[in-house]
């Protein structure tokens, strides 16, 4: 389909942030994104004209923030509201190959929704993963270096060469990816076998390193994973905050050169996927 016909729904509720940067990223690539409040998808407190259906879009994005005050757990209330009426259409949306991106709080929502890691079922009733408090017990806000380790499954990173390192900023307090303790090793093995690990935190030498390079203590230095089909992708760092080189802290030392920032390829990859598939 034509770029201008690709509609991306950037979903928000109270407490989402970076939705403007997220919308801008898709818009700058020539697609037609729009903000959609979750109530518009649930048909609550909105007019008929404002009401939307998941299938009005070819891609959904859940941006960062502190949705619903992060009450109960980060992302839990957003996920519960979404699941209350949209579990079935969301399953169909994903099973038809339409992509879903969750950044930061969005990644937390995708795990609470049971869409990630997505083993065996498209969407699980009970979450199978948790983004828990950083090892430092505080909000970590800094540029992070991510090594791209996906071999082509993830539709959001196909334009990023494998093993290349990207500078994408992190800003979160709950980014440590946990699986059920007794299954942790087995789950990581499955992620590797299914090519679901997308980004891992590294140091400037490209080596897997601990704090502060890994800002949250995630096992295996995991920064982002996708579902087995590669169409649902969650990552803690914010690619929309490094769409242009001048958004990155290094440009004063390295010069502007190209205007293309390290996060841009994530949006380009998924737009390319949609334009070819649908």
């Amino acid at each position, binding site marked *: 389909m034509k770029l201008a016909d690709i509609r991306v729904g950037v979903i928000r509720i109270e407490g989402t942030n970076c939705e403007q940067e997220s919308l801008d990223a898709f818009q700058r690539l020539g697609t037609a994104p729009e903000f959609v409040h979750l109530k518009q998808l649930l048909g609550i407190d909105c007019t008929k004209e404002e009401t939307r259906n998941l299938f009005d879009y070819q891609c959904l994005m859940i941006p960062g923030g502190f949705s619903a005050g992060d009450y109960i757990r980060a992302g839990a209330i957003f996920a*519960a509201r979404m699941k209350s009426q949209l579990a079935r259409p969301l399953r169909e949306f994903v099973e038809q190959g339409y992509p879903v991106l969750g950044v930061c709080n969005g990644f937390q929502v995708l795990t609470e929704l049971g869409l990630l890691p997505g083993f065996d079922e498209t969407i699980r009733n009970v979450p199978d993963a*948790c983004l828990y408090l950083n090892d430092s017990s505080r909000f970590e806000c800094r540029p992070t270096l991510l090594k791209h380790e996906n071999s082509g499954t993830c539709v959001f990173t196909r334009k990023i060469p494998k093993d290349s390192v990207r500078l994408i900023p992190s800003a979160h307090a709950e980014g440590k990816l946990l699986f059920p303790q007794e299954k942790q090793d087995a789950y990581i093995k499955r992620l590797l076998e299914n090519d679901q690990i997308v980004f891992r935190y590294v140091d400037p030498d490209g080596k897997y390193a601990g704090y502060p390079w890994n800002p949250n203590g995630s096992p295996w230095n995991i920064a982002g994973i996708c579902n087995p089909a590669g169409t649902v992708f969650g990552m803690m760092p914010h690619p929309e905050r490094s769409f242009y080189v001048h958004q990155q802290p290094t440009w004063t030392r390295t010069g502007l050169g190209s205007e293309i920032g390290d996060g841009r390829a994530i949006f380009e990859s998924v737009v390319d996927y949609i334009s070819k598939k649908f």
Partner: protein
Amino acid sequence: MCAPGHSGMYEATVTITLKKGISDPEGANTLKALHLLGFTDVKTAHTIRTFDLLIDSTDKHKVEHDVEQMCQRLLTNPVIHHYAITVKEAP
């Protein structure tokens, strides 16, 4: 039908604790501060979260089943939490 004297309401208490091995920085910091205040006999401090729910029902089994579902679907994440439920008639 309510039993005589039943208010038609149940009080459910959900007590949520972190599983062993999951860090509890609030508990750890509390322990540190208690030690600084001189309460050096305190050996551990863990934080616990509770939800008190008042539920309009006369069917205790349904209440127990529903609260279990609430824990599974929203109040806890089984990856990090244990939970216990108590249900009693509201006065």
